[in-house]
């Protein structure tokens, strides 16, 4: 980042403001492209993973090698589809909802530290910021469900809102022990604190953090609305949930947001618990960004594996799980991690 500022200010001769804007535009473009690529790659990956888990191939035809072009073709197809807005829909909200959902995850991407020094927005409250902006997604889903003027969509939206608002609590609580350890909400600081091999990753620091990691993982599945917690969609009950009435490009936004969110929560997991860009063996950090992405993709794979194995829970059981199991457990983790920290002398 500093190098980019230096380049624009010194070499290109811009003033500070112009350099800031240029860098911001460049970073935003990169983020958006990466996000779109994510959606395409993870769509394909999801289908292949689901296929092989289910003893079939998944897409095989488009683009010769294992149907690699299938997701691209799907994207092109979906862009070419007719855009339908139901006559009775609440048009402004209907149009704005997918953008809001996308915006929620896109904004959060800004604070992801890909490599040392390479982060679009190096905020001191980075982690807090990420969780704050991702709650925009709830708003978008609620808006979409309401504006569609469809009963199924309304059900999906109501379920989704309840679910995502609830699961934000264990999600946050699970990351608090890490914040206790680092004493900072800056995403770079969190990663830097995990330097020194796999044993220094927060997930293996102490047993409470290990539990907190899995709690985070479960909450993140719920937060991304994926199986077994895909209450807002529940295709066997609510047809397609909150995006029942959406077609074409607007549907693609939801789709994009789902996979962007999926990768986002995986990257947060990597950043907070799994050592960020550090490689598992100390001293082998040649390609920090690649290491980060690979870990993120492995988390995504884990997520998919869970999705394609487990049945879906019911909406009241989902709430039960959140309020009666996960929040107590994460609270115990917070306290336990604090005690462990004191006992092991990690904090002076």
């Amino acid at each position: 980042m500093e190098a980019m500022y230096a380049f624009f200010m010194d070499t290109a001769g811009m003033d500070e403001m112009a350099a800031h804007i240029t860098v911001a535009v460049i970073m935003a473009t990169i983020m958006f492209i990466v996000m779109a690529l994510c959606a395409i790659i993870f769509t394909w990956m999801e289908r292949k993973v689901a296929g092989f888990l289910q003893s079939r191939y998944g897409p095989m035809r488009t683009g010769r090698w294992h149907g690699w072009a299938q997701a691209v073709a799907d994207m092109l197809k979906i862009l070419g589809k007719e855009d339908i807005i139901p006559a009775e829909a609440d048009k402004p909200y209907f149009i704005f909802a997918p953008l809001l959902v996308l915006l929620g995850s896109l904004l959060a991407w800004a604070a992801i530290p890909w490599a040392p020094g390479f982060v679009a927005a190096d905020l001191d409250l980075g982690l807090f910021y990420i969780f704050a902006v991702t709650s925009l997604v709830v708003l978008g889903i609620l808006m979409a469900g309401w504006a569609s003027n469809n009963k199924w969509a309304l059900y999906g939206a109501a379920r989704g809102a309840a679910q995502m608002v609830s699961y934000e609590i264990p999600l946050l609580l699970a990351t608090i022990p890490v914040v206790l350890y680092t004493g900072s909400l800056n995403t770079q600081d969190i990663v830097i604190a995990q330097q020194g091999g796999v044993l220094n990753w927060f997930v293996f620091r102490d047993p409470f953090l290990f539990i907190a990691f899995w709690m985070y993982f479960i909450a993140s599945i719920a937060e991304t609305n994926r199986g077994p917690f895909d209450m807002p969609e529940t295709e066997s009950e609510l047809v397609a949930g909150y995006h029942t009435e959406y077609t074409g490009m607007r549907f693609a936004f939801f789709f994009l947001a789902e996979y962007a969110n999926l990768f986002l929560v995986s990257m947060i997991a990597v950043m907070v618990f799994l050592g960020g860009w550090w490689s598992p063996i100390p001293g082998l950090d040649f390609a920090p960004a690649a290491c980060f992405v690979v870990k993120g993709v492995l988390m995504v794979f884990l997520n998919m594996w869970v999705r394609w194995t487990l049945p879906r829970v019911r909406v009241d059981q989902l709430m039960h799980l959140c309020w009666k199991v996960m929040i107590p457990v994460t609270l115990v983790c917070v306290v336990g991690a604090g005690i462990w920290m004191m006992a092991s002398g990690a904090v002076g």
Partner: protein
Amino acid sequence: MTDDVKITNRGWESQDHASEMKSELLELNMGPQHPATHGVLRLLLQTDGEIVYKVTPVVGYLHRCTEKIAEGVDYKQWIVYTDRFDYLAPVTNNHAYVTAVEKLADLAVPERAEHLRIVTAELSRIASHLIALATFGLDMGAWTPLLYCFREREEILNLLERIAGGRMLYNYMVPGGVRYDVPKDNWVADVLEFVTMLENKKLPDYNTLLTYNKIFIERTSDVGIISKETAFDYGCTGPVLRGSGVKFDCRRDDPYSLYDRFDFEIPVGMGEMGTVGDCWDRYIVRVREIEQSCRIIRQALETLPEGPYGTLELKKPVKVPAGAAYSRTEAAKGEMGHYIIADGGAKPFRNKVRSCSFCNLQVVEKVGVGLMVSDLVALVGSLDIVLGEIDR
């Protein structure tokens, strides 16, 4: 849970508030195009939030008036239509119909034919139960068991294709026998091998993956409880009745064909995970019936007698004297009944089909009240309906 729910005005009690804040039941149209209704079933729901207050099934979207067609085609031609009732287990439908015709026409069936009928019918039953497991899992959001079950069903279809020629609709039985003998290419050994494989390898897999999964148990136990009395009252049969703890199976208690010669057990719901008669019980009855069907197949094939596989009149039209007969058999989804009234001509005068899903579905009206929308999906899934035989 079901009986004490009453539809009440759940709005504010005082009048002046009622004018500002009114709550009413939401009318929800579940189907006919809905992923969880197993075809073109339409359920008219009245819900309060997630709770269902009234369920009204609306059927008939697949109606073909097969009973009228039956009056226009002769006894043998109509067998191909019976395939299309429960298209997931067509051979059991054939069996139900030919049993009725044989009863009426007093036709003797050679033993080899009976054995072949039993083997194919049980294979068909396994295929149907596999679909029941698969789609029930799918209703619960588990995708993978669906594909695994279809994989095994595919093997059954291959086996049936080799003996009967069709892949899905076999037209295998005729009054007085079966249409084809065992094919010469090692069919019997393949069936036995498949049955062993299913019992030893695949069913444990399904059990681990779905049956004993905690989420699945939570979703299905204590949900949609059909008591014994309700089951009798609503004429439920098959796995639905047995799930309610009634040890009744036409194959044993009202034997037809040669079922009384084989040794098998009748699994019943025992309320292992909740109450007797809940969705999990109906599900586990199907899983255990697959095992029992495997046993029957093994016995029937090991004692397969030599001899003709059909009477000599096979190729001629069936002569049916005037009269009426009701015959029932245990099809995959319940009790399949055919009430044939013959006037002595080449075509039946009236052919009433009592289809299992038709009666089983009706219970939704009673049991569905007070469930959550998600539970209603579980209930309908656990009844294992096929719209092809409800609408006929």
